């Protein structure tokens, strides 16, 4: 999300042009919302539904947005919460799935080499907070301060979560790929 786009959305929102603010947000964020949702729910159709359902919540809540954080932060929080809700609803289904692709997104828009697929498998074994923290920090390059607002966790807690996540992923990746030299690629 560019600063320019964020400013344009904020300007429209400030002048109560909520439909324009929402439209700009959709144009700039739709794919990012989908990516975030897909990494959590791991299913294409569910991720699409999450984006749509989160959009309804965003639209309804837009006039109440306090402007005390970036739109992207506020919007990500809604998407993440919606995705977690969808995940909890579908957890029994996901748990019943078996096979090597467990933890790997199932989507026509997902393509991964073996190493990346293994990373997703390792992520699937992490506790929820560690997994979310890792995804937002590692894949999205989000600063801890923003992740803190999205997940409602202290920055200190997030740093600890990320550290534990990295250590555990390294361990699992070494087990899955004993021949790969991770140290030289760190």
């Amino acid at each position: 999300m560019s600063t320019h786009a964020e400013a344009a959305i904020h300007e429209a929102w400030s002048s109560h042009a909520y439909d324009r603010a929402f439209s700009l947000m959709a144009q700039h964020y739709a794919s990012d919302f989908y990516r975030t949702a897909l990494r959590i729910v791991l299913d294409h159709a569910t991720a699409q539904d999450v984006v749509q359902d989160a959009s309804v919540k965003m639209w309804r809540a837009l006039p109440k947005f306090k402007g005390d954080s970036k739109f992207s932060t506020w919007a990500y929080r809604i998407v993440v919460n919606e995705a977690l809700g969808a995940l909890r609803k579908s957890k029994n289904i996901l748990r019943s799935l078996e096979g090597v692709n467990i933890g790997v997104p199932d989507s026509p828009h997902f393509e991964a080499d073996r190493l990346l697929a293994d990373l997703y498998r390792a992520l699937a074994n992490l506790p929820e907070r560690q997994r979310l923290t890792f995804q937002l920090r590692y894949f999205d390059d989000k600063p801890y301060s923003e992740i803190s607002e999205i997940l409602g966790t202290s920055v200190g807690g997030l740093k600890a979560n990320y550290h534990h996540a990295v250590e555990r992923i390294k361990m699992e990746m070494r087990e899955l790929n004993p021949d790969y030299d991770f140290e030289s690629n760190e």
Partner: protein
Amino acid sequence: MNKMNKYDGIHVPPEAHQDLVARMMTALDLPQQGAVPSSRSRIRAISLWAASVAALLAVGLFLFSDGSPTESEVWVTEDLAWEVFQAGELELSVDEAAALLDESELNQLLADLTY
């Protein structure tokens, strides 16, 4: 971590992006919360203001009257003022109502009426 893997493997092509945008835009068909007060809540708010003014007028008439009612005097009770307002005989804009009361008086009356 292997930084070569930092890409999450998810690539949304332009047509899929537009499909997601379209999905998001369907939300605009739904009403918002708190964007514009509904007519009902606006009427209720204005009613409270007008009722406050009516009640104040009734109190004023009572205080400035010189005792028991005579045949020529019209007594305005709070209930009567409210009935008059509800019957549409008394019309006040919010600005007019606000002009008749200072903030503390209005707050007190509103608190009394809404208790």
